[in-house]
C-alpha cells in the first residue's frame, strides 16, 4: 500500500534541507518544526523498510529506473535496515533535544544549524542505504562537509580544531576514492554486489590488495581508529553541544558499518580471513585503540574530552571484534554498534544539558549536580553503567559476545584489553559521580546559608525528555537484546 519507502528515507531529509532556509525566513522557529517533521517521516519510513526487509528479504531500488549494474542502486538488508532505524531515530531524538541548546549557543543562527543538521542526517542515511561504491563516497563527503560546518561554529578554538579535521578527513575521503578507483580499474564496476561477483577471480591481484589498503586506511581516518584519532577529541569537544550529540555517536559507527560492508559484502570473507593477515592486524589495532583511548581518557579533566577518548576506545572494541572473525565476535561487534551509538548519544546529550545549565563541561564544575538535576544525572548513571557494562543495560550484552568471541579465537591480549577497559570506564564514571555528589559534604557552609545553591535546577523538558528517553532505550535494548540478535543481527552476519 505504501509502495517503495526505501528511497523516502534519504529523499525526505534532503528536500527538507533545501526547504528549511526558506521556511526559516518567515520565522526562525519554523525551521525546527520542519526538521522534526522531516526526521519523523524519515524514521517512520526506515522502520517500515526494516519490517519489510525482515518479512520479504533484501529490498532493492534502482534509482531513475536503471537496472543495477549500470545505475545506482539502493539496497536494504537486515544490517543496514537496523542501522537506518538507529541513525534516523537518534537523529530525531537529538533534533528534539537540540532546540534549547541551539537557542543559547548559536543565537540567531538557528536556521543555518538546522539546514546543516538535515544535510548531515541525509549524508549518514545515504551512506547506509546505497549499494554503489562511488555514491557512498559522495554521501560520505556530504556527511563530512556538513559535519565540518557544524563543528566550526562551536566554542573558542573550534575553527582550528575543525581545520585539522578537514585536512585529515579529506585525506581519508581521498584514500577511499582512490581505492574505489583501483577497484573500478580491475573489475569495471561500481555496484557492490556486482563487484563482489567480479572480484572472485582477482583475489591475488596486487591492485586489489592496494585498493583494500587505501580504502581501509581512509575509513580508519574517518572512524578515528587509534593512531589516526588525533582530530577527534578537539573537534568533538569544541563543537556546539547539539552538534556533538549528533555527530559523535553516529559518524564513527557509520564508518565502521562501511568497513563491514566493504570487507564482507564487497571483498568477501575468504579474502579477509585467508589471503591477508588482515584480521590479525585488526585485532591488534583494536587492542591499541582500547588501551590508548582508555589511558588518555584517564588523563582528562574535561568531561566532553573524556567522552571523546572513551569513544576512541569503543572504536577499538568493534574493530577488534570484526578482526576476531568468528560469528560470536562479529555478532558482538554489530550489536555494539547499536549499543554504543545509543550510549554515546545519551552521554553527549547529558554533557549538552550540563553545558546549558552550568556553561561549562569541565569536571571541576560538576559539584553538586546530583542535587541540582536529579533526573539528568539518573540518566547519566544509566548511560555510565552501560558503558562500564553492568548487566541489565545493553552495554553488558555486546561486551559479553565480544569477550566470548575473543576467548574462542584465543586472543588473550584482546580479552584483557576488553576487561581492563571496562574497569577503567568504571573509574572514569565513578569519578564523575563522586564529583557530582561530593559537594554537600565538602562545603558545609552552603547547607545552612546557601540554600540557593542546592535548589533544583533541572533541565528544560525539551532537553530532559529525549535524554531520559535514551536512558530508557538503553535498558530496553538490554532486555530485548535476544530478540534483536535473533531477528536482525543473525541475518546480517556474513557466511563464515
Amino acid at each position, binding site marked *: 500500500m505504501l509502495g517503495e519507502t526505501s528511497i523516502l528515507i534519504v529523499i525526505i531529509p534532503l528536500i527538507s534541507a533545501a526547504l528549511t532556509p526558506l521556511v526559516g525566513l518567515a520565522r526562525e522557529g519554523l525551521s525546527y518544526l520542519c526538521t522534526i517533521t522531516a526526521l519523523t517521516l524519515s524514521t517512520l519510513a526506515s522502520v517500515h523498510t526494516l519490517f519489510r526487509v525482515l518479512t520479504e528479504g533484501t529490498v532493492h531500488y534502482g534509482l531513475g529506473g536503471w537496472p543495477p549494474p549500470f545505475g545506482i542502486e539502493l539496497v536494504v538488508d537486515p544490517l543496514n535496515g537496523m542501522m537506518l532505524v538507529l541513525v534516523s531515530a537518534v537523529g530525531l531524538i537529538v533534533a528534539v533535544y537540540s532546540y534549547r541548546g541551539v537557542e543559547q549557543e548559536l543565537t540567531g543562527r538557528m536556521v543555518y544549524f538546522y539546514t546543516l543538521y538535515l544535510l548531515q542526517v541525509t549524508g549518514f542515511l545515504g551512506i547506509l542505504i546505497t549499494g554503489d561504491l562511488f555514491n557512498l563516497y559522495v554521501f560520505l563527503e556530504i556527511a563530512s562537509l556538513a559535519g565540518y560546518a557544524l563543528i566550526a561554529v562551536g566554542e573558542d578554538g573550534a575553527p582550528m580544531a575543525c581545520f585539522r579535521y578537514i585536512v585529515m578527513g579529506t585525506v581519508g575521503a581521498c584514500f577511499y576514492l582512490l581505492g574505489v*578507483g583501483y577497484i573500478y580499474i580491475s573489475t569495471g564496476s561500481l555496484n557492490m554486489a556486482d563487484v563482489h561477483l567480479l572480484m572472485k577471480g582477482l583475489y591475488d591481484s596486487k591492485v586489489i590488495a592496494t585498493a583494500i589498503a587505501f580504502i581501509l586506511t581512509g575509513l580508519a581516518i574517518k572512524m578515528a581508529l587509534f593512531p589516526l584519532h588525533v582530530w577527534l577529541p578537539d573537534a568533538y569537544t569544541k563543537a556546539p553541544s547539539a552538534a556533538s550529540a549528533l555527530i559523535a555517536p553516529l559518524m564513527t559507527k557509520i564508518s565502521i558499518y562501511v568497513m563491514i560492508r566493504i570487507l564482507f559484502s564487497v571483498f568477501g570473507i575468504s579474502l579477509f580471513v585467508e589471503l591477508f593477515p588482515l584480521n590479525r592486524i585488526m585485532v591488534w589495532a583494536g587492542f591499541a585503540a582500547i588501551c590508548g583511548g582508555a589511558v588518555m581518557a584517564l588523563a582528562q579533566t574535561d568531561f566532553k574530552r573524556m567522552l571523546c577518548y572513551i569513544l576512541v576506545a569503543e572504536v577499538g572494541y568493534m574493530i577488534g571484534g570484526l578482526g576476531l572473525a568468528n560469528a560470536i565476535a562479529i555478532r558482538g561487534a554489530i550489536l555494539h554498534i547499536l549499543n554504543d551509538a545509543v550510549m554515546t548519544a545519551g552521554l553527549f546529550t547529558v554533557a549538552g544539558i550540563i553545558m546549558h545549565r552550568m556553561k561549562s563541561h569541565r569536571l571541576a564544575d560538576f559539584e553538586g549536580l546530583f542535587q541540582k538535576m536529579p533526573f539528568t544525572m539518573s540518566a547519566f548513571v544509566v548511560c555510565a553503567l552501560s558503558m562500564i557494562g553492568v548487566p541489565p543495560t545493553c552495554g553488558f550484552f555486546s561486551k559479553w559476545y565480544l569477550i566470548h568471541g575473543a576467548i574462542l579465537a584465543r586472543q588473550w591480549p584482546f580479552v584483557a584489553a576488553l576487561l581492563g577497559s571496562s574497569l577503567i570506564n568504571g573509574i572514569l564514571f565513578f569519578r564523575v559521580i563522586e564529583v557530582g555528589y561530593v559537594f554537600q559534604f565538602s562545603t558545609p557552609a552552603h547547607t545552612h546559608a546557601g540554600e540557593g545553591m542546592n535548589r533544583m535546577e533541572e533541565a528544560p523538558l525539551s532537553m530532559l525528555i529525549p535524554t531520559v528517553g535514551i536512558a530508557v532505550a538503553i535498558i530496553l535494548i538490554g532486555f530485548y537484546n535476544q530478540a534483536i540478535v535473533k531477528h536482525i543481527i543473525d541475518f546480517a552476519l556474513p557466511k563464515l
Partner: protein
Amino acid sequence: MFESLLHHYNYWMFIGLMMIGFYAMMAKKNLIKKIIGMNIFQSAIILFFISTSVKGGGVTVPILEHPEGAQGGFVDVMKYANPLPHVLMLTAIVVMVATLGVALAVVMMIYKRYHTLEEDEIALIRRKQGLKC
C-alpha cells in the same frame, strides 16, 4: 624497467603530484599552503581517474555521430574513450570545490580570531592566553 616507467608515465605523475600535495598538507605551517596542498592532492586523484579512461590511439570523445548506428544495438566501444570516469570526476570535482569552500571559510574564522594564519603563531597565542591548543 625504464620502458615500463615510460609506458605508465601517467601513474608516476599522479603519484608524484599526490606526494607533493601530501607533503604540503603535513609539513607546511601556513594554513593556506595546507589548503593548496589539499587541492593538489585531490587534483592528482582526478587526473588519475581521467587517465584511466584513455584507450590506446585513435579513440575519440563518446559522442555518437550516427544515431542510427546506436539504435541498431551495437556501438564499437574501442572507438570511444570510457565516459564513466569523466562523469565520476565531475561529481568529485563538485565535492572538492565544496571542501575547498568550507576550508577557506574556516580559515577566515581563524584569521578573524587570531590575525595570523601561521600554525605555530596560533599555538603561541593560545598558550599565552592559558588555553590548550
